[in-house]
């Protein structure tokens, strides 16, 4: 018998609120495996998984703790996620992690990796510097070496050296997870009244702390339950949300957008889980397969260098593919990558005649009235004043 929708969402909500990582501690106790945290956006979780280590996504603390000590480490013009991450660590909530990976998102996260090394000298810390050159002979070679280096490190940490066949098996497991995420996003774009974004977000985000196999089962259960749920179609404006790829918006903000009359049919929330578009090849050298996938099928986002594709092309293609009627720029305050890219994306939307609105948030934002007004008027302007 399939699991009721409310049970799945409640479980995902519990995991979302589990800032003490009780789920991770339980998994470690049950399996005897180690756990390594990673910051947004992308790390090759397959490599971590192949070393029998649980990858744990760290996405700040939202509005669930008061940041006191974390504020001492950053200037006032720095975003919220590094503050709350430091606060979580200094209050012992991340003690169950045996290491931490810091992908190259921006200078702030790079600096955070340095602080981590100083604050937790006994823990494994690595800054994961992704290639800026997308030629296979240059960036590809570099990235493949980085992946091998990471695999060696993970093997040493867990005492379980990564074999090619095990890495291939891990790629297979993550391919399945990505396919299910793709299915969830497609269902939401086709029938958004069946998949409220706040629910989908909770279910996707559960993958931060659950073993990937368990997360895939949760996705399957949610998809089955959402498809059969008695939720009548509604008339809301279809929008794509952009800019939330690193520091995540509070859940209340996502609910506010939908209550204000928007259907979110595309977004860049928890983007690392969907970073590779399509399957990673299971043929040949698995490190090369991961590297090739990164070079050729990474998603387009502000913190990824793209030499050739014009800015905005991917966003416009998402708008077309999801039949969206507008774009909501929803970026964290002081997010350099998102806010520096935004004017270029706006220009691209202007050229295509796609309406948009913009606001900023912090992960601990608690008041949504102004955003509700803005989103409500934006949704109405699309529904009532756009050309039929």
């Amino acid at each position: 018998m399939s699991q009721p929708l409310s049970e799945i969402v409640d479980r995902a909500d519990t995991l979302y609120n589990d800032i003490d990582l009780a789920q991770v501690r339980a998994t470690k106790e049950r399996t005897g495996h180690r756990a390594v945290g990673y910051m947004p956006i992308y790390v090759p979780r397959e490599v971590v998984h192949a070393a029998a280590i649980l990858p744990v996504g760290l996405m700040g603390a939202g509005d669930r703790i008061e940041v006191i000590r974390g504020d001492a480490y950053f200037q006032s013009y720095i975003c919220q996620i590094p503050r709350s991450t430091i606060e979580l660590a200094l209050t012992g909530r991340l003690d169950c992690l045996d290491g931490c990976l810091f992908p190259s998102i921006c200078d702030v996260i790079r600096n955070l990796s340095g602080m981590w090394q100083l604050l937790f000298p006994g823990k494994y810390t690595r800054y994961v510097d992704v290639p800026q050159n997308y030629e296979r002979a240059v960036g590809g070679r570099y990235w493949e070496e980085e992946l091998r280096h990471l695999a060696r490190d993970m093997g040493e940490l867990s005492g379980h050296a990564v074999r090619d066949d095990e890495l291939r098996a891990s790629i297979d497991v993550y391919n399945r997870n990505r396919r299910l995420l793709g299915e969830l996003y497609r269902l939401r774009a086709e029938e958004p009244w069946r998949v409220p974004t706040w629910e989908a977000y909770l279910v996707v985000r559960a993958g931060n702390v659950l073993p990937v196999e368990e997360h895939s089962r949760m996705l399957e259960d949610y998809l089955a339950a959402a498809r059969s749920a008695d939720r009548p179609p509604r008339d809301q404006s279809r929008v794509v949300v952009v800019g939330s790829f690193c520091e995540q918006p509070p859940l209340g903000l996502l609910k506010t957008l939908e209550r204000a009359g928007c259907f979110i049919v595309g977004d860049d929330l928890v983007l690392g889980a969907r970073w590779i578009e399509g399957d990673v090849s299971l043929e040949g050298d698995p490190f090369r397969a991961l590297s090739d996938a990164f070079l050729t099928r990474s998603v387009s986002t502000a913190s990824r260098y793209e030499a050739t594709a014009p800015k905005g092309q991917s966003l416009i293609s998402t708008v077309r593919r999801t039949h969206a009627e507008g774009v909501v720029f929803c970026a964290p305050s002081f997010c350099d990558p998102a806010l520096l890219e935004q004017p270029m994306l706006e220009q691209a939307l202007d050229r295509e005649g796609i309406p948009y609105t913009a606001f900023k948030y912090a992960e601990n934002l608690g008041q949504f009235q102004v955003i509700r007004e803005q989103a409500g008027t934006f949704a109405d302007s699309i529904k009532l004043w756009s050309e039929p």
Partner: protein
Amino acid sequence: MSPTIVTAGIDIGTSAVKAAVVRSGQGGGRERQDAVLASRVAERIRRRDPRQVIRQCYEAALAEAGVDSKEVAYVATTGEGELCEFRVGHFYGMTAHARGALFLDPEARAAVDVGALHGRAIRLDERSKVLGYQMTSQCASGTGQFLENIARYLGVTLEEIGPLSTKGDAPEKISGICAVLAETDVINLVSRGISVPNILRGIHESMAGRLVKLLRAIRAQGVVLLTGGLATDEGLLCAMRDEVKSSWKAGAIEVRTHADGVHAGAIGAALWGAYRHERLTTKSSQKEIGA
């Protein structure tokens, strides 16, 4: 323009639910000049489950219009729309009140929506497109809930507020900024023996002062229609007219009311619902909701 489209609008406020049923012909576009108000009902929430009140109010509006729920092409909400599980679409309060104001008074080029918790001025064009708006800040002073509280302290019914206020001949000044200070002012006035009509008149003048400032901020011109819960409060209307007369160029602004002004949000939502229904029933627009 036939056959007829029947749509319903439900305005879910903080203290009351208003529902309206509208009939209009196919092909009416945004204007829907043939639209007829079939019924309108208001129900106060009074500590009940709002979902239950919404259902009762909707059913009462259908019964008054002689319409079966299956005939309703589109149920549109405004206000706290998420409380209405059977809605098809939702419109923001300003959008709905602007449309309702234009329907009730085709000459209206601004609306002042005074509800339980907020007051807002909306500038609109001849198609009811919102051109600008201003809201009161978070303080409840100058809104319906505040007035209702004061009426309770003074021992007068809501229906008595307007007529009593118009009898005030020496109104006392009340704080226009803070509801707490205003309530303290009222307590002081009562202990000083100021008459109820003069207290109420003072409150209405204070509210009018704030609302007229909002109208000035949106650069309102021409006919302004009062909408929302206090739309038919004659004391407020009187005070608004006096405030406009004393602070605005003669003839620039004319404040009006309408017997159905309380229902403007629900009526506007129903009218926009009819427009959306028409758009969605065209083949291309069906894709918009993925149908």
